[in-house]
């Protein structure tokens, strides 16, 4: 057999039937994170501050956004992305406030993902907005796992869900800046201890700021706005 040089050995290869052990290091969850990072980069490039609004169905996410728009409309050019499985009901409600409103239908997916948000970003003129609220599908579980590219997050819970929402869904509270405890006017009727809920939040995530709100009247919303740094 011809030899190229005295130092080069014959090629080593696996015999048939031998086992190859390949190192991969492929993070399956990277795909969404990459898109989320790209969303954030694009938003920051146009100096748009983006805030995730998450919470269970009926907790008051849309109402909170409506009240925040009333306070902030004079200072910011606002847009809202609204995720739901179907309908554009909430997006239309928000649109009546005169802000850019993009409904995102997730179909059968139980949360927004970075891909859908990326499409919504492409549908608006980023040069004409400086504050973006991204309202997620009503769900206290799945949105926690899927970053969208926002700067800050707020979770909205309400007393009508009972006293155990925080301890039953701890993960979403680990990664949030503010928690709105909504419908406080009904706390007595529901026999829910709001201070206990706030304590539950603090014990999971000491950096999350819990704020009591009544998003029908607007009580507490200025404090939410302040806690979000707006």
């Amino acid at each position, binding site marked *: 057999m011809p030899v190229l040089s005295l130092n080069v050995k014959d090629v080593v290869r696996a015999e048939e039937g031998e*086992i190859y*052990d*390949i190192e991969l290091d492929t993070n399956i969850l990277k795909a969404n994170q990459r898109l989320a990072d790209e969303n954030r980069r694009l938003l920051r490039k146009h100096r748009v501050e983006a805030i995730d609004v998450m919470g269970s169905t009926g907790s008051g996410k849309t109402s909170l956004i409506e009240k925040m728009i009333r306070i902030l409309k004079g200072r910011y050019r606002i847009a809202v992305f609204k995720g739901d499985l179907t309908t554009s009901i909430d997006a239309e409600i928000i649109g009546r406030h005169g802000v850019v409103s993009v409904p995102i239908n997730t179909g059968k997916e139980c949360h927004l993902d970075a891909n859908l948000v990326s499409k919504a970003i492409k549908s608006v003129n980023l040069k004409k907005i400086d504050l973006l609220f991204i309202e997620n599908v009503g769900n206290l579980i*799945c949105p926690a796992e899927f970053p969208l590219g926002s700067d800050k997050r707020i979770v909205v819970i309400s007393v009508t869900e009972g006293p155990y929402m925080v301890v039953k869904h701890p993960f979403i509270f680990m990664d949030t800046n503010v928690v709105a405890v909504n419908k406080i006017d009904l706390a007595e009727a529901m026999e829910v201890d709001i201070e206990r809920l706030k304590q539950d939040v603090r014990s999971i995530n*000491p950096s999350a700021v819990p704020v009591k709100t009544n998003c029908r009247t607007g009580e507490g919303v200025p404090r939410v706005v302040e806690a979000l740094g707006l």
Partner: protein
Amino acid sequence: MHEYSITTQIVKSVTEEAEKHEAKNVVEVHLVIGDLTFLNPEQVKFWYEVLIESTILEKSRLRIEKKEGRVRCPSCGYEGSFKYIDDPVYHIPFPVLSCPNCEGIVDIVDGKECTIKSIKMVVS
């Protein structure tokens, strides 16, 4: 959650890699799941057995390694495992975001991945 769709992606990634190497069949997949990742290893294993039938991964073993979460404290420089709440209401020790050393607020540096570490395959 979403164990089914994540496992589908795992099987797809491994199949692609095996085909790249012209493997006859896959023998073992080494998967690392971080402590903070929303995936139950048992359910991943369940869906894996279902999804590998009649594929190049049939009869392969899924070896799941759990990776502990790690935090870093910008206040005192602590870097290490989470502090856990031992509150019976959770039924499990639950990780929290306060520093085990100084009770400051920590950043999560590890424990959120689902990584295919390596694959063992038989070459044709």
